[in-house]
């Protein structure tokens, strides 16, 4: 099962992961997961909050399309993607990705690839606000390099 959610609401990765674990079939040997949090500081200094813009309908469709591609490429039994948008206070979770497969290699690869796609290919725009104002965060060269390693 593939589930992708774009939400302006705070979410609890613990609860989501628990449900994802519970839902697994008997043949599942591996669950890999990743949680991304809003840090309280970045290269640019203190962060009070992030603001994540998205393009309603288009963003949902693109994230679902990327998730389908990755689930198929890695023969996943289940893939969960939750991405928060809007105003995100420091320390809050931003994104959760989790994958189920019989074997670990596919589960790991799927989660890492989904994150790499989200960083560079999914229609989100991220602005960091601190005491010195706000600035847009765009992908780094390292983000693009990691993304380029995956098959199209």
């Amino acid at each position, binding site marked *: 099962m593939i589930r992708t959610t774009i939400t302006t609401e705070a979410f609890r990765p613990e609860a989501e992961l628990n449900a994802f674990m519970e839902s697994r079939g008997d043949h599942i040997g591996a669950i890999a997961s990743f949680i991304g949090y809003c840090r309280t500081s970045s290269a640019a200094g203190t962060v009070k909050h992030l603001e994540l813009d998205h*393009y309603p309908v288009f963003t949902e469709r693109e994230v679902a399309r990327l998730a389908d591609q990755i689930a198929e490429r890695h023969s996943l039994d289940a893939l969960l993607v939750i991405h928060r948008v809007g105003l995100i206070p420091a320390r809050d979770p931003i994104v959760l990705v989790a994958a189920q497969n019989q074997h670990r290699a596919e589960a790991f690869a799927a989660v890492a690839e989904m994150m790499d796609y989200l960083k*560079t290919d*999914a*229609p989100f725009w991220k602005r960091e606000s601190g005491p010195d104002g706000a600035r847009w965060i765009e992908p780094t060269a390292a983000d693009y390099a990691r993304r380029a390693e995956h098959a199209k």
Partner: protein
Amino acid sequence: MTKLLFFGRARDAAGCSEMICDLPANVETVAELRSWLHQRDPELGSVLMARDIRVAADHTICVSEATSVRGASEIAFMPPMSGG
């Protein structure tokens, strides 16, 4: 009438997230749309001329500057994306 949408730093440059315009008849391609906006508002236009700002017409990313945007009801200006 065409709705223009601005995201990320394009939104800052536009000072708004959307704008309803009447595109003139001679604006056919992505390149022409950028030029037209640049004439109307040089400050916004100079940001939107950057090729790293991609254009999507009715939820489809325009693959080149020559892609037609004619007849689109919604055109989005999208700087480099970054989620996660």
